[in-house]
Protein backbone atom coordinates (compact mmCIF):
# COMPACT_ATOMS: atom_id res chain seq x y z
CA UNK A 1 0.00 0.00 0.00
CA UNK A 2 1.60 3.23 -1.15
CA UNK A 3 0.98 6.45 0.71
CA UNK A 4 0.07 9.58 -1.19
CA UNK A 5 3.57 10.86 -0.49
CA UNK A 6 5.05 7.76 -2.11
CA UNK A 7 2.76 8.08 -5.10
CA UNK A 8 3.75 11.73 -5.45
CA UNK A 9 7.41 10.69 -5.38
CA UNK A 10 6.92 8.15 -8.15
CA UNK A 11 5.08 10.68 -10.33
CA UNK A 12 7.75 13.26 -9.66
CA UNK A 13 10.44 10.78 -10.78
CA UNK A 14 8.67 10.45 -14.10
CA UNK A 15 8.21 14.19 -14.53
CA UNK A 16 11.86 14.82 -13.67
CA UNK A 17 12.90 12.47 -16.47
CA UNK A 18 10.70 14.36 -18.94
CA UNK A 19 11.12 18.01 -17.90
CA UNK A 20 14.88 17.52 -18.09
CA UNK A 21 15.77 21.21 -18.14
CA UNK A 22 13.55 22.19 -15.20
CA UNK A 23 14.07 22.00 -11.46
CA UNK A 24 11.06 19.95 -10.32
CA UNK A 25 11.89 19.87 -6.64
CA UNK A 26 9.88 22.93 -5.68
CA UNK A 27 6.72 22.53 -7.73
CA UNK A 28 3.40 23.40 -6.17
CA UNK A 29 0.87 20.58 -5.93
CA UNK A 30 -2.08 22.86 -6.64
CA UNK A 31 -0.88 24.79 -9.70
CA UNK A 32 -1.14 23.24 -13.15
CA UNK A 33 2.08 21.45 -14.10
CA UNK A 34 2.11 23.19 -17.46
CA UNK A 35 2.21 26.57 -15.73
CA UNK A 36 5.25 25.60 -13.69
CA UNK A 37 7.23 23.48 -16.08
CA UNK A 38 8.10 23.48 -19.77
CA UNK A 39 5.62 20.74 -20.65
CA UNK A 40 3.57 20.30 -23.81
CA UNK A 41 1.09 17.70 -25.03
CA UNK A 42 3.89 15.36 -26.16
CA UNK A 43 5.30 15.43 -22.65
CA UNK A 44 1.96 14.41 -21.17
CA UNK A 45 1.89 11.49 -23.58
CA UNK A 46 5.35 10.62 -22.25
CA UNK A 47 4.01 10.73 -18.69
CA UNK A 48 1.20 8.36 -19.64
CA UNK A 49 3.66 6.04 -21.39
CA UNK A 50 6.04 5.98 -18.45
CA UNK A 51 3.20 5.19 -16.03
CA UNK A 52 2.44 2.20 -18.20
CA UNK A 53 6.05 1.09 -18.65
CA UNK A 54 7.18 1.54 -15.05
CA UNK A 55 4.03 0.82 -13.11
CA UNK A 56 1.69 -0.92 -15.56
CA UNK A 57 -0.88 1.80 -14.98
CA UNK A 58 -3.22 2.59 -17.87
CA UNK A 59 -4.54 6.13 -18.25
CA UNK A 60 -7.33 6.27 -20.83
CA UNK A 61 -7.39 9.36 -23.04
CA UNK A 62 -10.53 10.75 -21.43
CA UNK A 63 -8.69 10.84 -18.10
CA UNK A 64 -5.70 12.88 -19.31
CA UNK A 65 -7.12 16.07 -17.69
CA UNK A 66 -6.74 14.28 -14.34
CA UNK A 67 -2.98 14.70 -14.71
CA UNK A 68 -3.15 18.50 -14.76
CA UNK A 69 -1.72 19.17 -11.29
CA UNK A 70 0.43 17.11 -8.97
CA UNK A 71 -2.45 16.91 -6.52
CA UNK A 72 -4.86 15.69 -9.20
CA UNK A 73 -2.24 13.16 -10.30
CA UNK A 74 -1.96 11.78 -6.78
CA UNK A 75 -5.73 11.74 -6.29
CA UNK A 76 -6.25 9.93 -9.58
CA UNK A 77 -3.26 7.60 -9.52
CA UNK A 78 -3.11 6.52 -5.87
CA UNK A 79 -5.97 4.02 -6.24
CA UNK A 80 -4.36 2.68 -9.41
CA UNK A 81 -1.00 2.23 -7.71
CA UNK A 82 -2.73 0.36 -4.92
CA UNK A 83 -4.93 -1.90 -7.01
Amino acid at each position, binding site marked *: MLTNTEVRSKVLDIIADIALDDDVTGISDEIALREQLDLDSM*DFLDIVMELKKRHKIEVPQEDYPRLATMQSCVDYLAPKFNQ
Partner: protein
Amino acid sequence: MKNDNQRIVITGIGLTSPLGNNLADLRDGLLNGKSGIVHTEIRHMGKVAAGLCQFDETKHQSKKMRKRGTRAGAISVYCTKEALLDSKIDFDGIDKNRIGVYLGITEHGNVETENEIHDLYTSHNMDVSLWSHHHNPRTVANNPAGEVTLNLGITGPHYTIGAACAAGNLGIIQGVQQLLLDEVDLAFAGGISESTETFGIFAAFKAQGALGHHDDPSLATRPLDLDRNGIVVSEGGAVYALERLSDAKKRNAKIYAEIIGYHSNSDASDFVLPNTQRQIECMTQAIKKTGLEASDVDIVSMHATGTTQGDIQECLAVAAVFNDSPKTYINATKGFIGHAMGAAGALELAGNIPSFDDGYVHPCKKIENLDPQCAMKNLVNGEKMLCDANVILNNSFGMLGINSSLIVKKYK
Protein backbone atom coordinates in the same frame (compact mmCIF):
# COMPACT_ATOMS: atom_id res chain seq x y z
CA MET B 1 30.08 36.54 -66.96
CA LYS B 2 27.86 35.91 -63.95
CA ASN B 3 26.74 38.83 -61.83
CA ASP B 4 27.02 38.69 -58.04
CA ASN B 5 23.43 37.48 -57.67
CA GLN B 6 24.32 34.40 -59.70
CA ARG B 7 27.38 33.50 -57.68
CA ILE B 8 27.04 31.40 -54.51
CA VAL B 9 29.61 31.55 -51.75
CA ILE B 10 30.31 29.77 -48.48
CA THR B 11 30.26 32.16 -45.55
CA GLY B 12 30.05 29.79 -42.60
CA ILE B 13 31.06 26.23 -41.75
CA GLY B 14 29.82 24.13 -38.84
CA LEU B 15 30.88 20.55 -38.40
CA THR B 16 31.41 17.61 -36.14
CA SER B 17 33.74 14.81 -37.11
CA PRO B 18 35.76 11.98 -35.57
CA LEU B 19 38.68 14.45 -35.64
CA GLY B 20 36.95 17.27 -33.82
CA ASN B 21 33.99 19.57 -33.66
CA ASN B 22 35.18 22.54 -35.68
CA LEU B 23 37.03 23.20 -38.91
CA ALA B 24 40.35 24.04 -37.26
CA ASP B 25 40.53 20.73 -35.38
CA LEU B 26 39.52 18.71 -38.44
CA ARG B 27 42.11 20.45 -40.56
CA ASP B 28 44.81 19.98 -37.93
CA GLY B 29 44.07 16.28 -37.77
CA LEU B 30 44.20 15.88 -41.55
CA LEU B 31 47.42 17.84 -41.97
CA ASN B 32 49.15 16.00 -39.16
CA GLY B 33 48.07 12.45 -39.83
CA LYS B 34 45.78 11.89 -36.86
CA SER B 35 43.26 9.07 -36.85
CA GLY B 36 39.71 9.51 -35.61
CA ILE B 37 38.90 5.81 -35.75
CA VAL B 38 38.34 3.88 -32.51
CA HIS B 39 37.03 0.52 -31.45
CA THR B 40 33.55 0.57 -29.98
CA GLU B 41 30.87 -1.90 -28.96
CA ILE B 42 27.91 -2.16 -31.32
CA ARG B 43 24.76 -4.10 -30.43
CA HIS B 44 24.84 -7.64 -31.87
CA MET B 45 28.23 -6.92 -33.49
CA GLY B 46 30.62 -6.71 -30.56
CA LYS B 47 33.81 -4.72 -31.03
CA VAL B 48 34.06 -2.89 -34.34
CA ALA B 49 36.03 0.05 -35.67
CA ALA B 50 34.02 3.25 -36.06
CA GLY B 51 34.37 7.01 -36.28
CA LEU B 52 32.52 8.68 -33.41
CA CYS B 53 31.87 12.35 -32.67
CA GLN B 54 32.24 13.86 -29.21
CA PHE B 55 30.46 17.21 -29.55
CA ASP B 56 28.34 18.64 -26.74
CA GLU B 57 24.78 17.75 -27.73
CA THR B 58 23.31 20.32 -25.38
CA LYS B 59 25.49 23.24 -26.44
CA HIS B 60 22.72 24.42 -28.76
CA GLN B 61 19.79 22.22 -27.69
CA SER B 62 17.85 21.70 -24.47
CA LYS B 63 18.11 18.30 -22.82
CA LYS B 64 14.39 17.75 -23.36
CA MET B 65 14.51 18.48 -27.07
CA ARG B 66 17.55 16.26 -27.45
CA LYS B 67 15.74 13.39 -25.78
CA ARG B 68 12.64 13.98 -27.90
CA GLY B 69 14.64 14.14 -31.11
CA THR B 70 17.29 12.03 -32.76
CA ARG B 71 21.07 11.77 -32.90
CA ALA B 72 20.77 12.87 -36.53
CA GLY B 73 18.82 15.91 -35.38
CA ALA B 74 21.37 16.69 -32.68
CA ILE B 75 24.21 16.55 -35.21
CA SER B 76 22.21 18.76 -37.58
CA VAL B 77 21.37 21.34 -34.93
CA TYR B 78 24.95 21.48 -33.70
CA CYS B 79 26.46 21.90 -37.17
CA THR B 80 23.90 24.43 -38.35
CA LYS B 81 24.18 26.61 -35.27
CA GLU B 82 27.97 26.49 -35.51
CA ALA B 83 27.74 27.49 -39.18
CA LEU B 84 25.40 30.34 -38.28
CA LEU B 85 27.71 31.62 -35.56
CA ASP B 86 30.72 31.26 -37.84
CA SER B 87 28.99 33.26 -40.58
CA LYS B 88 28.39 36.17 -38.16
CA ILE B 89 25.05 36.78 -39.84
CA ASP B 90 22.73 39.10 -37.91
CA PHE B 91 20.18 36.34 -37.39
CA ASP B 92 17.69 38.53 -35.56
CA GLY B 93 17.72 40.98 -38.44
CA ILE B 94 16.89 38.61 -41.29
CA ASP B 95 13.61 37.22 -42.59
CA LYS B 96 13.26 33.64 -41.30
CA ASN B 97 10.92 32.86 -44.19
CA ARG B 98 13.86 33.32 -46.54
CA ILE B 99 16.12 30.74 -44.92
CA GLY B 100 16.22 27.16 -46.19
CA VAL B 101 17.67 24.02 -44.60
CA TYR B 102 18.84 21.31 -47.00
CA LEU B 103 20.62 18.34 -45.49
CA GLY B 104 21.92 15.31 -47.31
CA ILE B 105 21.33 11.93 -45.70
CA THR B 106 22.29 8.40 -46.64
CA GLU B 107 19.32 7.05 -44.77
CA HIS B 108 17.27 8.03 -41.75
CA GLY B 109 15.12 6.23 -39.19
CA ASN B 110 17.04 2.99 -38.92
CA VAL B 111 18.45 3.97 -35.54
CA GLU B 112 15.07 4.68 -33.98
CA THR B 113 13.40 1.66 -35.58
CA GLU B 114 16.13 -0.69 -34.41
CA ASN B 115 15.86 0.70 -30.88
CA GLU B 116 12.07 0.32 -30.76
CA ILE B 117 12.21 -3.23 -32.10
CA HIS B 118 14.99 -4.08 -29.65
CA ASP B 119 12.84 -2.87 -26.76
CA LEU B 120 9.75 -4.59 -28.17
CA TYR B 121 11.52 -7.95 -28.11
CA THR B 122 13.71 -7.60 -25.03
CA SER B 123 11.72 -5.58 -22.49
CA HIS B 124 8.21 -4.96 -23.77
CA ASN B 125 7.16 -8.56 -24.26
CA MET B 126 5.91 -7.75 -27.79
CA ASP B 127 3.39 -5.25 -26.43
CA VAL B 128 3.15 -2.72 -29.26
CA SER B 129 1.16 -0.34 -27.05
CA LEU B 130 4.54 0.53 -25.53
CA TRP B 131 5.90 1.59 -28.94
CA SER B 132 6.92 5.24 -28.64
CA HIS B 133 4.63 7.95 -29.93
CA HIS B 134 7.87 9.75 -30.83
CA HIS B 135 8.65 7.12 -33.43
CA ASN B 136 6.98 8.86 -36.37
CA PRO B 137 8.38 12.38 -35.87
CA ARG B 138 11.77 10.86 -35.21
CA THR B 139 11.79 8.73 -38.33
CA VAL B 140 10.18 10.94 -40.96
CA ALA B 141 12.81 11.61 -43.58
CA ASN B 142 12.83 15.37 -42.98
CA ASN B 143 13.59 14.92 -39.26
CA PRO B 144 17.21 16.14 -39.23
CA ALA B 145 16.42 19.33 -41.15
CA GLY B 146 13.13 19.80 -39.31
CA GLU B 147 14.84 19.72 -35.93
CA VAL B 148 17.06 22.56 -37.16
CA THR B 149 14.06 24.73 -38.02
CA LEU B 150 12.45 24.01 -34.65
CA ASN B 151 15.66 24.92 -32.87
CA LEU B 152 16.36 28.13 -34.76
CA GLY B 153 12.83 29.29 -35.54
CA ILE B 154 13.44 29.08 -39.28
CA THR B 155 10.17 29.28 -41.21
CA GLY B 156 11.48 28.81 -44.73
CA PRO B 157 11.68 25.42 -46.44
CA HIS B 158 13.41 22.43 -44.93
CA TYR B 159 13.93 18.94 -46.18
CA THR B 160 16.55 16.26 -46.52
CA ILE B 161 18.07 14.94 -49.69
CA GLY B 162 18.36 11.17 -49.75
CA ALA B 163 21.37 10.46 -51.88
CA ALA B 164 23.24 7.54 -50.34
CA CYS B 165 26.88 8.45 -49.77
CA ALA B 166 26.79 11.25 -52.33
CA ALA B 167 24.39 13.10 -50.03
CA GLY B 168 26.88 15.55 -48.56
CA ASN B 169 27.57 17.02 -51.97
CA LEU B 170 23.92 16.83 -53.01
CA GLY B 171 22.77 18.76 -49.95
CA ILE B 172 25.14 21.58 -50.85
CA ILE B 173 24.04 21.47 -54.48
CA GLN B 174 20.40 21.75 -53.38
CA GLY B 175 21.26 24.85 -51.35
CA VAL B 176 23.03 26.41 -54.30
CA GLN B 177 20.09 25.73 -56.58
CA GLN B 178 17.52 27.18 -54.21
CA LEU B 179 19.59 30.35 -53.84
CA LEU B 180 19.91 30.65 -57.62
CA LEU B 181 16.15 30.17 -57.95
CA ASP B 182 15.69 33.01 -55.45
CA GLU B 183 13.63 30.75 -53.20
CA VAL B 184 15.76 31.72 -50.19
CA ASP B 185 18.40 34.28 -49.25
CA LEU B 186 20.34 32.05 -46.90
CA ALA B 187 20.77 28.29 -47.15
CA PHE B 188 22.07 25.95 -44.49
CA ALA B 189 23.18 23.05 -46.60
CA GLY B 190 25.39 20.02 -46.21
CA GLY B 191 25.20 16.46 -45.01
CA ILE B 192 24.85 14.52 -41.79
CA SER B 193 24.95 10.93 -40.58
CA GLU B 194 24.24 9.10 -37.35
CA SER B 195 24.91 5.68 -38.90
CA THR B 196 27.13 4.43 -36.09
CA GLU B 197 24.05 4.21 -33.85
CA THR B 198 22.63 1.34 -35.93
CA PHE B 199 23.98 -2.21 -35.99
CA GLY B 200 22.30 -2.88 -39.32
CA ILE B 201 24.72 -0.87 -41.42
CA PHE B 202 27.70 -2.62 -39.81
CA ALA B 203 26.09 -6.04 -40.23
CA ALA B 204 25.26 -5.35 -43.87
CA PHE B 205 28.76 -4.22 -44.75
CA LYS B 206 30.13 -7.27 -42.94
CA ALA B 207 27.79 -9.55 -44.87
CA GLN B 208 29.01 -7.87 -48.04
CA GLY B 209 32.62 -8.53 -47.03
CA ALA B 210 33.20 -4.78 -46.93
CA LEU B 211 33.48 -3.94 -43.24
CA GLY B 212 36.99 -2.70 -42.49
CA HIS B 213 38.73 -4.24 -39.49
CA HIS B 214 42.16 -4.38 -37.84
CA ASP B 215 43.50 -4.88 -34.33
CA ASP B 216 44.71 -1.29 -34.54
CA PRO B 217 41.56 0.74 -35.28
CA SER B 218 43.59 3.43 -37.03
CA LEU B 219 44.37 0.83 -39.70
CA ALA B 220 40.84 -0.53 -40.03
CA THR B 221 40.18 1.39 -43.23
CA ARG B 222 43.00 1.95 -45.72
CA PRO B 223 41.76 3.45 -48.98
CA LEU B 224 44.02 2.74 -51.98
CA ASP B 225 46.16 0.30 -49.96
CA LEU B 226 46.54 -3.22 -51.31
CA ASP B 227 46.04 -4.49 -47.74
CA ARG B 228 42.71 -2.73 -47.21
CA ASN B 229 39.70 -4.79 -46.17
CA GLY B 230 36.80 -2.40 -46.23
CA ILE B 231 34.84 0.56 -44.91
CA VAL B 232 34.79 1.99 -41.41
CA VAL B 233 31.38 3.45 -40.59
CA SER B 234 31.46 6.92 -39.06
CA GLU B 235 29.05 9.55 -37.92
CA GLY B 236 29.35 13.28 -38.41
CA GLY B 237 28.03 16.34 -40.12
CA ALA B 238 29.06 19.43 -42.00
CA VAL B 239 26.67 22.30 -42.68
CA TYR B 240 27.52 25.37 -44.73
CA ALA B 241 26.00 28.83 -44.64
CA LEU B 242 25.52 29.66 -48.32
CA GLU B 243 24.65 33.07 -49.68
CA ARG B 244 24.60 34.92 -52.95
CA LEU B 245 27.83 36.83 -53.38
CA SER B 246 25.88 40.08 -53.56
CA ASP B 247 24.48 39.51 -50.05
CA ALA B 248 27.80 38.37 -48.65
CA LYS B 249 29.50 41.48 -50.00
CA LYS B 250 26.82 43.74 -48.52
CA ARG B 251 27.59 42.57 -45.02
CA ASN B 252 31.33 42.26 -45.66
CA ALA B 253 31.25 38.57 -44.81
CA LYS B 254 34.22 36.29 -44.59
CA ILE B 255 34.10 34.14 -47.74
CA TYR B 256 35.60 30.66 -47.53
CA ALA B 257 35.05 29.75 -51.16
CA GLU B 258 32.77 30.14 -54.16
CA ILE B 259 30.87 27.13 -55.45
CA ILE B 260 31.53 27.38 -59.15
CA GLY B 261 30.24 24.10 -60.52
CA TYR B 262 28.80 20.68 -59.90
CA HIS B 263 27.31 17.70 -61.62
CA SER B 264 25.37 14.64 -60.59
CA ASN B 265 24.49 11.60 -62.66
CA SER B 266 23.47 7.96 -62.36
CA ASP B 267 25.32 4.76 -63.26
CA ALA B 268 22.16 2.86 -64.18
CA SER B 269 24.26 -0.28 -64.00
CA ASP B 270 24.36 -1.89 -60.52
CA PHE B 271 23.01 -1.59 -56.98
CA VAL B 272 26.45 -1.30 -55.36
CA LEU B 273 29.27 -1.59 -57.89
CA PRO B 274 30.63 1.70 -59.20
CA ASN B 275 30.87 2.65 -62.84
CA THR B 276 34.09 4.28 -64.01
CA GLN B 277 32.65 5.76 -67.18
CA ARG B 278 29.80 7.49 -65.35
CA GLN B 279 32.27 8.86 -62.79
CA ILE B 280 34.40 10.23 -65.63
CA GLU B 281 31.31 11.86 -67.12
CA CYS B 282 30.32 13.30 -63.75
CA MET B 283 33.69 14.96 -63.15
CA THR B 284 33.99 16.09 -66.77
CA GLN B 285 30.55 17.69 -66.81
CA ALA B 286 31.17 19.45 -63.51
CA ILE B 287 34.43 20.89 -64.84
CA LYS B 288 32.76 21.88 -68.10
CA LYS B 289 30.10 23.84 -66.21
CA THR B 290 32.80 25.94 -64.56
CA GLY B 291 34.35 26.94 -67.87
CA LEU B 292 37.70 25.64 -66.60
CA GLU B 293 39.91 22.82 -67.82
CA ALA B 294 40.76 19.72 -65.78
CA SER B 295 44.30 21.06 -65.50
CA ASP B 296 42.93 24.09 -63.63
CA VAL B 297 41.85 21.85 -60.74
CA ASP B 298 44.46 21.95 -57.98
CA ILE B 299 43.05 19.29 -55.63
CA VAL B 300 40.82 16.29 -56.28
CA SER B 301 39.26 14.99 -53.07
CA MET B 302 38.40 11.37 -53.78
CA HIS B 303 35.42 9.41 -52.46
CA ALA B 304 37.75 6.39 -51.90
CA THR B 305 36.02 4.28 -49.26
CA GLY B 306 38.56 1.51 -48.82
CA THR B 307 36.82 -1.18 -50.84
CA THR B 308 38.88 -2.80 -53.57
CA GLN B 309 36.52 -2.26 -56.45
CA GLY B 310 35.36 1.19 -55.36
CA ASP B 311 38.93 2.45 -55.02
CA ILE B 312 40.14 1.01 -58.29
CA GLN B 313 37.18 2.19 -60.37
CA GLU B 314 37.47 5.74 -59.01
CA CYS B 315 41.24 5.82 -59.51
CA LEU B 316 40.75 4.80 -63.13
CA ALA B 317 38.20 7.61 -63.50
CA VAL B 318 40.34 10.24 -61.79
CA ALA B 319 43.40 9.19 -63.79
CA ALA B 320 41.43 9.42 -67.02
CA VAL B 321 40.13 12.93 -66.30
CA PHE B 322 43.36 14.35 -64.88
CA ASN B 323 45.90 12.49 -66.98
CA ASP B 324 47.06 15.73 -68.58
CA SER B 325 46.96 17.80 -65.40
CA PRO B 326 50.51 17.93 -64.10
CA LYS B 327 49.75 20.14 -61.11
CA THR B 328 46.56 18.48 -59.87
CA TYR B 329 47.04 16.87 -56.46
CA ILE B 330 44.87 13.96 -55.37
CA ASN B 331 43.92 13.06 -51.81
CA ALA B 332 41.34 11.09 -49.84
CA THR B 333 39.99 11.63 -46.34
CA LYS B 334 38.38 8.38 -45.22
CA GLY B 335 41.63 6.81 -43.97
CA PHE B 336 41.54 9.42 -41.18
CA ILE B 337 37.85 9.69 -40.32
CA GLY B 338 36.20 6.64 -41.88
CA HIS B 339 33.13 6.82 -44.07
CA ALA B 340 30.71 9.35 -42.62
CA MET B 341 28.03 8.30 -45.10
CA GLY B 342 25.60 11.19 -45.66
CA ALA B 343 28.10 13.59 -44.15
CA ALA B 344 31.12 12.30 -46.06
CA GLY B 345 31.06 14.63 -49.06
CA ALA B 346 30.37 17.71 -46.98
CA LEU B 347 32.99 16.86 -44.34
CA GLU B 348 35.65 15.98 -46.89
CA LEU B 349 35.07 19.24 -48.73
CA ALA B 350 35.40 21.10 -45.42
CA GLY B 351 38.66 19.35 -44.69
CA ASN B 352 40.09 20.61 -47.97
CA ILE B 353 38.76 24.18 -48.06
CA PRO B 354 41.45 25.53 -45.69
CA SER B 355 43.96 24.84 -48.48
CA PHE B 356 42.90 28.20 -49.87
CA ASP B 357 44.34 29.87 -46.77
CA ASP B 358 47.09 27.67 -45.34
CA GLY B 359 48.71 26.74 -48.64
CA TYR B 360 48.81 22.97 -48.10
CA VAL B 361 47.04 20.01 -49.57
CA HIS B 362 46.31 17.47 -46.88
CA PRO B 363 47.51 13.95 -47.55
CA CYS B 364 45.83 10.57 -47.67
CA LYS B 365 46.47 8.69 -44.47
CA LYS B 366 49.79 6.95 -45.06
CA ILE B 367 49.33 4.23 -47.69
CA GLU B 368 52.01 1.68 -46.86
CA ASN B 369 51.36 -0.72 -49.71
CA LEU B 370 49.85 1.27 -52.54
CA ASP B 371 47.61 -0.77 -54.81
CA PRO B 372 49.33 -0.58 -58.22
CA GLN B 373 45.94 -0.01 -59.78
CA CYS B 374 45.54 3.08 -57.59
CA ALA B 375 48.94 4.56 -58.38
CA MET B 376 48.38 8.06 -59.70
CA LYS B 377 50.81 10.86 -60.17
CA ASN B 378 50.48 13.60 -57.57
CA LEU B 379 48.74 11.32 -55.09
CA VAL B 380 49.47 12.99 -51.75
CA ASN B 381 50.48 10.08 -49.56
CA GLY B 382 51.12 10.44 -45.85
CA GLU B 383 52.65 13.91 -45.80
CA LYS B 384 51.01 17.24 -46.55
CA MET B 385 52.41 19.16 -49.50
CA LEU B 386 52.65 22.83 -50.32
CA CYS B 387 49.92 23.77 -52.75
CA ASP B 388 48.83 27.17 -54.01
CA ALA B 389 45.26 25.95 -54.34
CA ASN B 390 42.60 27.87 -56.24
CA VAL B 391 40.21 25.11 -57.32
CA ILE B 392 39.07 21.95 -55.50
CA LEU B 393 36.95 19.16 -56.97
CA ASN B 394 35.16 17.02 -54.40
CA ASN B 395 33.86 13.58 -55.39
CA SER B 396 31.08 11.78 -53.56
CA PHE B 397 29.49 8.60 -54.87
CA GLY B 398 26.88 6.24 -53.50
CA MET B 399 24.87 3.06 -53.80
CA LEU B 400 22.34 2.60 -56.57
CA GLY B 401 24.84 4.37 -58.77
CA ILE B 402 24.63 8.01 -57.68
CA ASN B 403 27.61 10.22 -58.50
CA SER B 404 28.38 13.81 -57.62
CA SER B 405 31.28 16.16 -58.20
CA LEU B 406 31.34 19.60 -56.62
CA ILE B 407 33.86 22.30 -57.50
CA VAL B 408 34.80 25.23 -55.29
CA LYS B 409 37.16 28.08 -56.00
CA LYS B 410 39.14 30.38 -53.80
CA TYR B 411 37.39 33.73 -53.60
CA LYS B 412 39.61 36.65 -54.47
